């Protein structure tokens, strides 16, 4: 006995208008079974209205070792947030 079924990452959209969110993974022989298994494993209580299944081996991830060069540059650019610009109290609707 033999090879394992491939691993799939499962994404669920909880209600119309929200993005699909990663909920976990599971094993399945093919895409169709991955969706069926995802329904049983991850939506037993009306958690979702849509399922995406992606083979884990097809996911490309940023490396944890490169966290600083990847994400540090954003932290000094505080002017990207609206709160950086104080507005006079008498100015409305801005």
């Amino acid at each position: 006995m033999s090879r394992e079924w491939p691993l799939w990452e499962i994404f669920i959209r909880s209600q119309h208008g929200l993005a699909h969110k990663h909920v976990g993974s599971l094993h399945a022989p093919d895409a169709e079974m991955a969706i069926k298994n995802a329904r049983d494993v991850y939506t037993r209580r009306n958690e979702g209205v849509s399922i995406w299944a992606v083979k884990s081996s097809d996911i490309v991830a940023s490396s944890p070792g490169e966290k600083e060069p990847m994400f540090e540059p954003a932290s000094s650019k505080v002017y990207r947030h609206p709160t950086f610009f104080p507005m006079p109290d008498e100015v409305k609707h801005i």
Partner: protein
Amino acid sequence: MYAQMVDTGAKKLRSLEEMTPEERAFQARVDADIKIEPKDWMPEAYRKTLIRQISQHAHSEIVGMLPEGNWITRAPTLQRKAILMAKVQDEAGHGLYLYCAAETLGVSRDQMVADLHSGKAKYSSIFNYPTLSWADIGAIGWLVDGAAIMNQIPLCRCSFGPYSRAMIRVCKEESFHQRQGFDIMIKLCRGTPEQKAMAQDALNRWWWPSLMMFGPPDASSVHSAQSAQWKIKILSNDELRQRFIDQTVPQADFLGITMPDPELKWNAERGHYDFGAIDWNELYEVVKGNGPCNRERLRARVDAWESGAWVREAALAHAEKRAAAGRRAA
């Protein structure tokens, strides 16, 4: 507690000064409550301990389906049957969440299953007891799931991201399990004298094994200290056990049934219930494989795995054949 006596490989707890720079940085992240994710650097012992703990937890969910599955065909009403099926299906789901969490640490699903079947990996001692009457399904939901929740709620805050996220999902679903059990107990205790006697009998048989689920006293255990330092164990076995007793005794009072412990009584000074001595030899025997149902449980798992082998192989062969046909058509 679904993971009992987890070995950390530690001989003694090391201070920050005795750690390598990498270990120190790791411990600092744990201390700051920053979650450790699968691709982050982690000490090998942390990885191995978590594989042992999470896989033991997963195996418990899966083996835990057997004692309850025993009553699906004999549930007293169609609604009780549907509810019990939903509960057993949840246990399967919980096992799968946990297996996935363990797989992120680099162990394969097949390896974990093989370790369960060879006896190398353990599952909770509690599932080696038989379910003799319908009242046992009530007692399991009330006591066993109650004890599991007691253990799992603190684990939602554990240091390993995938384990913590799996525990959050499990806890959300688990309180239904405890309530359905207590609901069965209420029904029996408000029923005929025979039905109430069934409820009392189930409590008599499940009370001590439920207390043993938390594991032996571990205040002085180096493994517990190591697991606490890594934040993969949040409260000691005795603390969890005391909390469980304190919350459960008033529930039994409500039902009008009594714990099989003549020494159980409220201690106003401590603000806790005092209780009688637990027979730890019984726990050690069950963990060693000599409980009432150990062999039966393992045989059922191995049979299910072996009987399903052709289905797993056929599904994979079918998927590969279809993929190859798709490639030719393209």
